[in-house]
């Protein structure tokens, strides 16, 4: 081994370790493994159901033929069924009634055994044929419905969503604008021309690893697991590396903005809320919104919510529950906040401003923004940009502590 070889050995080793270090497995791996252990192996189940289907199909034919025989006058010959016959019997020879008595009882017994073994749900699926025809299991259908429902309510309607035909149809049925649905063509493997892509099993197979490590590295919501898993991913127009870099800078800016908010003396926050703000977990639009509200009224941040199902803290929190600090949140305060936020222009106009009552009885205002969270709206505070006397956050609004883009 010469120095030349060692150089490339070391180069490859470093590249592999760097790439591997960027991989952070989900924390629910053990739960997923246990869930798989608790459910039958899909292939075995599929094989069993296929076998049962064949068996019940044959039994059904037998039953129909037997019914025809029972209804026929005694001694009448009936057409021969498609069942194995003894060797040597002529194919066109009609089966006599006496022959069928030996088949009737086994056929009925077979049906009963199948009904007991497979259960009513499996039988209805086998005979109904709806799921079998579409290739979707009830679990997959449920996850698909969940994902479509989440997208329809949480993803901005101005965002173009790439999806397979079935998912696009489901989204259109839920009122998502058809003009913003990008139906993925079979065989297309280039970068999706969209802001969000719905990674169903079909889409994952179509794009392979290009999705996770190239076109759409960030998952903002996840439904189900295994083959029925559906990931809602943000498309990185400039590639995964540029996206991750921008995301890192954005999180730094959000952390700085969160720190400024907390040190402004205009907000009251619980320990949990403080941790989320200081970790940069809060959507930049929310930070600006809270700063705007806090500039006028002292505000209590009761809690944050909605980071997307199945992704933990990986995706910014897009909703906040606000209350008037030191007072019960009354209708006048709600009206004032609503009036203030409704004057905002996109992207700072919330999709939801709602007065709600928490289980504790406290009245709060829920402010929510649509997914996906934009990146680069705010940039980190730079001391040189602040005029003398300018505090980290004041009544002049959010732009004193960070710059909105």
């Amino acid at each position, binding site marked *: 081994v010469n120095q*030349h*070889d060692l150089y*490339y*050995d070391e*180069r*490859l*080793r470093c*590249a*592999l*370790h*760097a*790439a*591997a*270090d*960027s*991989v*952070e*497995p*989900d924390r629910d*791996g*053990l739960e*997923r*493994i246990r869930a*798989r*252990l608790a459910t039958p192996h899909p292939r075995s189940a599929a094989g069993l159901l296929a076998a049962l289907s064949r068996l019940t199909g044959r039994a059904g034919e037998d039953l129909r033929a037997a019914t025809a025989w029972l209804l026929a006058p005694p001694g009448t010959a009936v057409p021969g069924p498609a069942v194995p016959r003894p060797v040597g019997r002529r194919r066109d020879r009609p089966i006599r009634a006496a022959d069928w008595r030996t088949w009737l009882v086994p056929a009925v017994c077979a049906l009963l055994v199948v009904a007991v073994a497979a259960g009513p749900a499996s039988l209805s699926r086998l005979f109904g044929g709806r799921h079998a025809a579409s290739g979707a299991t009830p679990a997959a259908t449920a996850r698909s419905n969940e994902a479509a429902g989440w997208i329809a309510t949480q993803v901005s309607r101005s965002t173009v969503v790439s999806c397979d035909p079935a998912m696009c149809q489901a989204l259109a049925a839920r009122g998502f604008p058809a003009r913003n649905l990008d139906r993925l063509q079979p065989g297309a493997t280039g970068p999706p021309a969209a802001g969000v892509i719905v*990674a169903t099993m079909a889409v*994952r*197979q179509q794009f*392979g*690893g*290009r*999705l*996770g*490590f*190239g076109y759409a590295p960030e998952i903002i919501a996840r439904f189900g697991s*295994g083959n029925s*898993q559906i*990931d809602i991913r943000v498309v990185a127009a400039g*590639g*995964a*590396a540029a996206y991750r870099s921008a995301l890192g800078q954005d999180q730094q800016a959000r952390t700085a903005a969160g720190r400024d908010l907390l040190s402004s003396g205009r907000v009251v926050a619980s320990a949990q809320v403080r941790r989320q703000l200081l970790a940069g977990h809060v959507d930049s639009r929310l930070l600006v919104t809270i700063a705007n509200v806090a500039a006028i009224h002292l505000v209590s941040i009761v809690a944050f919510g909605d980071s997307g199902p199945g992704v933990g803290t990986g995706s910014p929190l897009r909703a906040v529950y606000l209350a008037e600090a030191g007072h019960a949140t009354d209708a006048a305060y709600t009206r004032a906040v609503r009036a203030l936020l409704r004057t905002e222009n996109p992207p700072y106009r919330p999709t939801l401003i709602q007065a709600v009552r928490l289980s504790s009885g406290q009245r709060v205002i829920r402010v929510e923004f649509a997914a996906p969270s934009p990146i680069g709206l705010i940039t980190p505070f730079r001391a040189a940009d602040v005029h003398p006397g300018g505090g980290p956050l004041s009544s002049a609004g959010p732009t004193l502590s960070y710059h909105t883009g």
Partner: protein
Amino acid sequence: VTAAGPGDVAGTGMHVTEAMPAGAVLVSVLAGQDADSALTALYTEHYQPLVRLAALLVGDVAAAQDAVQDAFVAVHGSWRRLRDSDRALAYLRRCVVNRSRSVVRHQGPAALEPSAEIATLTALPPRQREALVLRYYGDLAEAEIAAAMGIGRGAVRRYTAQGMAAVRSALETDP
């Protein structure tokens, strides 16, 4: 694989009183345990490195996690056979490599990071890629790589040499 130090082994209720190589700790901890406890111990120690290994092989974290979870399920099912041996990790590793190979066969290879080295590695035939990943990321010995890939040591040497030659050639033209 990192060395385990003194402390509780998560989820097993057992205590490691002195630092020793992780594999050795694990084997001693696993001996005599039931499948569920062993699964937890194996998961605690090896899940993340195995997902990273699989991600390097398949180029997709979700698919890598699926492959590794499948492997853990397989180990759980085979625990009766494995429990008295020190082959739990080797078996797990082999399952991961096999399942990753299956993923690549169905979905095609993908690059984990857009670096020249990884792109070159992704373009290699699957066996060469596996041999290089197991050697340069897994830091495995030739025999361990052979066991993980289910091939002989001679074949490992051949795949490694061929793969490395291709990587050098590609990187020399694209430094």
